[in-house]
């Protein structure tokens, strides 16, 4: 007899159920849509928040790190430098934070109905991708302004073609790390307290507010060991023309992302079956 489905205590390690997830693809698009409508339903400014958030962050960085601390920006206009960093970093940090809370935030739905749980993290990175694109246009606007007002240090180049690749790496990191954390928070709630702090710490360990070239040689290697660093540096190099870029470090990033993603999926798969008992 051919069973459609067999429920057993343990699943195979990498039973990804792609076919099943594919069947639920409409659900993914609906979550993404709902994320947008629901988020801005009760706000006055509505979708303007998409622009305001990175702008405020950039202004804050410009004042604190640029004007007060006088950190180097590799000779680039400060606003543009920070905006570039914030735009690409936010994609990672927002996707990561939300994925990391996916079990906690959706406990009530997960407890009542089954659908491939992986849909949830996937819809998070997708909806943040849309958010990124909106913020990206804001960044492009600023870029054009500086470029056409004749700033010689702004040099966009052909590397902008790797942008999709950079986004894939960022999405992979957010998914992988997010799924690991979310799986562990179902049991050890302490982690969710550390999360906000951890993300902030990670931002300082990533060249978002400083260029990697401004670091003393002996520290550079430590920062470059952070696999997110090359992504941010490459992004800035592609659009602004300065930054530490090498294919080697980019592929290192990619490799690290693949490993993290697999570990994430593995743990997520293990936890999703029973998390309702512990959450």
């Amino acid at each position, binding site marked *: 007899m051919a069973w459609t*489905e067999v429920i057993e205590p343990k699943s195979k390690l990498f039973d990804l159920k792609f076919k099943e997830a594919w069947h639920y693809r409409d659900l993914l698009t609906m979550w993404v849509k*709902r994320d947008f409508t*629901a988020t801005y339903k009760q706000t006055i400014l509505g979708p303007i928040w998409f622009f305001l958030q990175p702008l405020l962050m950039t202004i804050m960085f410009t004042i604190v790190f640029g004007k007060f601390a006088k950190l180097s920006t590799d000779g680039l206009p400060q606003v543009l430098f920070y905006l570039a960093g914030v735009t690409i970093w936010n994609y990672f940090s927002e996707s990561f934070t939300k994925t990391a809370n996916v079990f906690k935030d959706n406990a009530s739905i997960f407890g009542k*109905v*089954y*659908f491939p749980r992986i849909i949830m993290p996937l819809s998070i990175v997708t909806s943040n991708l849309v958010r990124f694109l909106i913020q990206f246009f804001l960044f492009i606007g600023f870029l054009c302004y500086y470029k056409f007002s004749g700033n010689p240090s702004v040099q966009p180049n052909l590397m902008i073609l790797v942008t999709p690749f950079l986004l894939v790496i960022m999405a992979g990191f957010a998914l992988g790390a997010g799924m690991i954390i979310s799986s562990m928070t179902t049991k*050890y709630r302490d982690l969710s307290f550390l999360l906000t702090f951890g993300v902030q710490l990670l931002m300082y360990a990533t060249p978002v507010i400083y260029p990697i070239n401004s670091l003393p040689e002996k520290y550079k290697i430590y920062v470059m060991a952070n696999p997110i660093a090359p992504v941010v540096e490459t992004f800035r190099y592609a659009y602004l023309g300065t930054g530490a870029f090498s294919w080697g470090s980019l592929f290192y990033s990619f490799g690290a992302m693949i490993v993290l993603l697999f570990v994430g999926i593995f743990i997520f798969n293990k936890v999703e079956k029973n998390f*309702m008992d512990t959450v």
Partner: protein
Amino acid sequence: MSEVAIKVEQLSKLYALGQIGTGTISRDLERWYARIRGKEDPYAKIGQINDRTSKGSSDFVWSLRDINFEVQKGEVLGIIGKNGAGKSTLLKILSKITSPTTGKISIDGRIASLLEVGTGFHPEMTGRENIFMNGAILGMRKFEIQRKFDEIVDFAGVAAYIDTPVKRYSSGMYVRLAFAVAAFLEPEILIVDEVLAVGDAEFQKKCIGRMKDVSVNDGRTVLFVSHNMAAVKSLCTKGLVLKNGTFDFYGTQYQAVDHYQSSQLANASFMHEGELELAPGNQNIRMLRFIAKPLIGDSLSISSGVHFEVEFYNYKENINLDVTFELVNMDEVVVFHHGAFVCSNKDSKKAAYIVIGKLPPNLLNAGNYRFNIIFGENQRFGLYSKNDVIQFELTNESFGTNSKVLPGVVRPEIAYEIINL
């Protein structure tokens, strides 16, 4: 020859009791270490039968233990049992919300489960948006929902409000819409948990009708969990009774309901003979006798009234002792929960007491009833309680030419006044 839709073999589920979180890392490591050595989970062994009335010594209980059954295609299986018998756990495992500890379930066909109606409904979104969202959560493709859309709206009867956010809906409309989405799913196997407890009588009828439709006309398999014995009898073709997480009975829906109801029944009177220390109770209270008899006449019927009486020995001195009676009918509805002070001036003695209560004639409807009893201090602290102390039946009496049992929890005598205008 009929085919098997669901086959459950040796299904068990272990749950951790109490606080989760403290000491879990060390415990997890211990379990993990046992596993890599190929030994059994050290904490699984001490799991015990799920009997909530006695507090176990272990932190783990078997919410389900060694359940085996098969459901044929097109069958409607009613799953019955008391609260905590493991019904919901079984449904949760079947709908893949949690996984079993041991055992195996083989399923042939697409499953949709309705453990709650309206999962994923967002109050800010319109009825239309929510239909699509909810349908997608339940595993429907967009075009499937599109095709069923009119039927769903029609069944729910909310056509006029379909583009209004559901937060503006009345709770009845909300539930109707939610059930409608699920009712028009097209799974081969449908799992339903007590959703019929919501909505008005007319809608409940509609729901049962729809579920019958699904099983009889479309030949789909339905698993139905309910406390409503009438619904089980009218809707199901087979019944499974669970008790404390273990298998208790399997048979036709009538046999299963009978089995369940008779196992619920205790004796019509309770009388303790022998030593006081052996009577049911604890260091505070020992219960000696509990009876129910007619107030009028010599058999219990709806017009006889009920005289109920408890005799007990009290050990606690100088407290405000009280006793509360709880009457429960066959459908698990608490008819009343009512009590009195035995002593109210902090003057209780170490002695035997009798408390008598009288229910007037022509108040309760016919049927089987059970008494629970709770002894307490100051109506706040429980001293001792016992469920299902006695059971009794109130027989029916014909009303005019109608000799059937009339619906309703109560059947009072009402003096009507007729005004002819």
